[in-house]
């Protein structure tokens, strides 16, 4: 199609730079990573913040963190870079600002540097190393230049990883498991079977996600295992494995009964605690749903729209295994693991174009010309293609339950019209 000629095929994409906009004028576009860095920072009790950038960044940061002081004494401030500092650097002024915040009571401080400090190459690492011993506060930083990416996930995963900078080695607790990517608090869904079984076997779960206290992050290196439920926390898990030797098992991209079996076996092995058939019923149910999925999806084709934190490529690999042809993938972020999943998808004979959708009205019109059988995700506006708005919600589930839920969602998929071949355009 002419309208998608400018897009790269998945096999040729190596980074976010390879993901082109489907239509060129963003309306409304995507949030910058500063937004999600602030959302995460605000939610962590005990963590102070300092936004470094232009007046716009400082002003708009107040939409996310409206108060200068948090409920537990956190300090949230902004450092605005002036025209001289853009040329000569802001090290002196910023160091002084950090000193003032430490003097005012900030004990753990996250510096969030936006586009201009990153563009001019401000050496935050060097600056913090210089003043670390001089202030009564622990310091870390993230660069959140929007020009480094298309969207906001980096705000989450880089900030989670930066929190690792506060961690120190602790005595291992063999009964402690960190759940990375899910915050504490009540979840409206029934607890996932895996977590329920772990608790019944006497394991203590520590949830590290939005809303976790800083104290819990600091204590996290005592765990025997990190369960990773989101790609946004995978870099933190990698850091904790490297720094503290805490093994990790990722469940956020695991599809298929066999793969889930292997992941669960890995968990049991690492925790030295066999399951004793604890998941037999869930596994059986998932197997039946998987069989129905295979029958339903064979020969269909679809577009992967925005899926929230769910990575589209691993899902595409799973569905492609049943003969579901991916026509186009919207990718919010190209994660390092995506290269491997891309190869798996290619091995199945598929190499779809990838894009970032930034103008839903225009993009919907373009996508409808592709004559897909299905749109995975929330359809922006009214479109002709049947959609599955519940797909992004799969990120809240994992393991066998995810397969069951996926199967339930796919029940709503209309069968391919017998008079139309896959990919055939509407008249």
């Amino acid at each position: 199609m002419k309208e998608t000629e400018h897009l790269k095929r998945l096999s040729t994409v190596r980074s976010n730079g390879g993901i082109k906009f489907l239509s060129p004028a963003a309306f409304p576009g995507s949030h910058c990573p500063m937004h999600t860095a602030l959302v995460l920072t605000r939610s962590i009790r005990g963590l102070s913040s300092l936004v470094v950038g232009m007046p716009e960044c400082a002003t708009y940061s107040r939409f996310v963190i409206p108060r200068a002081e948090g409920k537990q004494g956190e300090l949230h401030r902004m450092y605005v870079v002036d025209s001289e500092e853009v040329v000569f650097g802001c090290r002196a002024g910023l160091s002084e600002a950090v000193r003032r915040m430490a003097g005012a009571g900030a004990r753990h401080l996250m510096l969030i540097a936006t586009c201009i400090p990153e563009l001019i190459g401000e050496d935050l690492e060097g600056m913090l190393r210089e003043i670390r011993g001089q202030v009564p506060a622990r310091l870390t930083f993230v660069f959140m230049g929007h020009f480094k990416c298309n969207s906001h996930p980096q705000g989450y995963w880089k900030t989670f990883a930066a929190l690792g900078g506060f961690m120190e080695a602790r005595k291992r607790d063999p009964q402690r498991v960190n759940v990375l990517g899910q915050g504490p608090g009540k979840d409206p869904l029934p607890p996932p079977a895996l977590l329920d079984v772990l608790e019944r076997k006497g394991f203590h779960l520590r949830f590290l996600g939005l809303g976790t206290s800083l104290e819990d992050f600091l204590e996290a290196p005592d765990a025997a295992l990190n369960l990773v439920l989101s790609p946004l926390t995978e870099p933190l898990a990698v850091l904790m494995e490297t720094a503290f030797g805490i093994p990790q098992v990722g469940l956020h991209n695991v599809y298929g009964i066999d793969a889930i079996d292997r992941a669960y076996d890995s968990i049991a092995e690492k925790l030295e605690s066999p399951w004793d058939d604890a998941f037999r019923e869930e596994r059986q149910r998932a197997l039946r749903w998987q069989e129905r999925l295979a029958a339903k999806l064979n020969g269909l084709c679809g577009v992967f729209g925005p899926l929230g934190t769910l990575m589209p490529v691993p899902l595409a690999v799973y569905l492609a295994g049943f003969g579901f042809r991916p026509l186009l993938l919207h990718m919010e972020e190209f994660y390092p693991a995506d290269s491997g999943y891309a190869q798996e998808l290619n091995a199945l004979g598929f190499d779809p174009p990838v894009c970032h959708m930034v103008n839903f009205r225009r993009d919907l019109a373009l996508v409808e010309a592709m004559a897909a059988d299905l749109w995975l995700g929330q359809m922006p506006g009214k479109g002709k293609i049947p959609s599955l708005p519940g797909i992004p919600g799969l990120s809240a589930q994992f393991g066998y339950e995810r397969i069951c839920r996926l199967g339930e969602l796919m029940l709503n998929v209309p069968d391919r019209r017998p008079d139309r071949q896959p990919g055939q355009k509407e008249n």
Partner: protein
Amino acid sequence: MGLHRFRPPPSGRMGTLCTLGSIRGAVLLEFGCMGHILYSRVALSRAGIGEACKFYSTHIDEIDITFGSTERLRRAITDIVQYEKPRLIFLSPSAVPEVIGTDLPALCRELQREYPETRLLPFGCGGFNVGFHQGLGETLLLLVKNLPVDRGIAEPPAFNLIGSCADLFRFRADAGELIRIMDGAFGMKPLCVLTSDTATAQIEQMGGGRINIVIRREGEAAAEYLRDRFGTPCLSLRPYGIKATVQWIRRIGEITGIAPDEDFIAAQVREAETLSAPCEATLSHLLRERPDALKLSLGGHADIVKGIMAFGCGELLFPRGLCWCDDPEMAGEDLPYFSEDQWTRALEEQKGGLLMASGEALAWAGRNREMQISNPGPRWQVNPYQPPFVGFRGALHLLDLWINEVTENSSL
């Protein structure tokens, strides 16, 4: 610049977006990262500007920056022209293109040849070293320099209102009151309310105004340009209080040569005086016995602070308290500029009296948030039907706020 606890002074770019954001039927394309424009749209929507000017962004990445590529801009313009078919596209740079030295006006001249049906109008102020009010003023000037077409004076007589922009607290209410007064006193309707209630077609007709009423000093350059080009006289004044509003009407009458409707003026004065009469005894008593309770402290845009000060301290004889403006370029002998360090210190030292300032300052000081007269503030302002501060109804609104504030804070 430096460390801020509260929202810092906004940039010139924010002034440009604030001015253009309310123009109906317009399209703006920013060359820069998407996040800026998305947040600008959020900010304007919370200030009560719905879908007026459509804000687009090109986004920009490392490759564009490294190679100085502007290909995204060309493709975005092509797409917008093809599908929106606008007559006019405003173009602005964000901070990143400003830092790397992108010459947007030159680009526009190059690209204009490819899009003869669509005018490309670049604006500057990428947020580098230009303040908000300067950006706003330059944008108003650029609009009147580029859009109005040659035309004669409109009949029946009409006027333009210059400077009603979304950064001012209750900007639509104030504009609405002035429009109401102009209609009642002179039978005049606005040709253009620049820019809170206008469309590009209306800006084009500004040359037909009998008078340009400027309600903030940033609009004076635009009014002077219109005077030089069309001979349109102007009046730069925000009327606060009953007497000042009557004087404002009379001055407009002198400038335009149109006699105001005396019955309308009399009725408005009568109504305002009747409704405010019950306050007089209490206010007089306080002025005699406890003048500190009426000490009037004001912080915000210099024109608004001076206007309310003239009413409260000039007309009603309230003692003057702490008064400051929010832009160092507007400071003068009689009205200093306060940075956040200065106003927080000053508010800590001065308790009591009547404090009217930004919502943010009032919230921090633990004072009555109904006394807000300027932005920023924590609250959304989506309702355009709030009472104004200018004009006859503004006088009543101010009196209502003051009398309630003093009676709630005292043992009266």
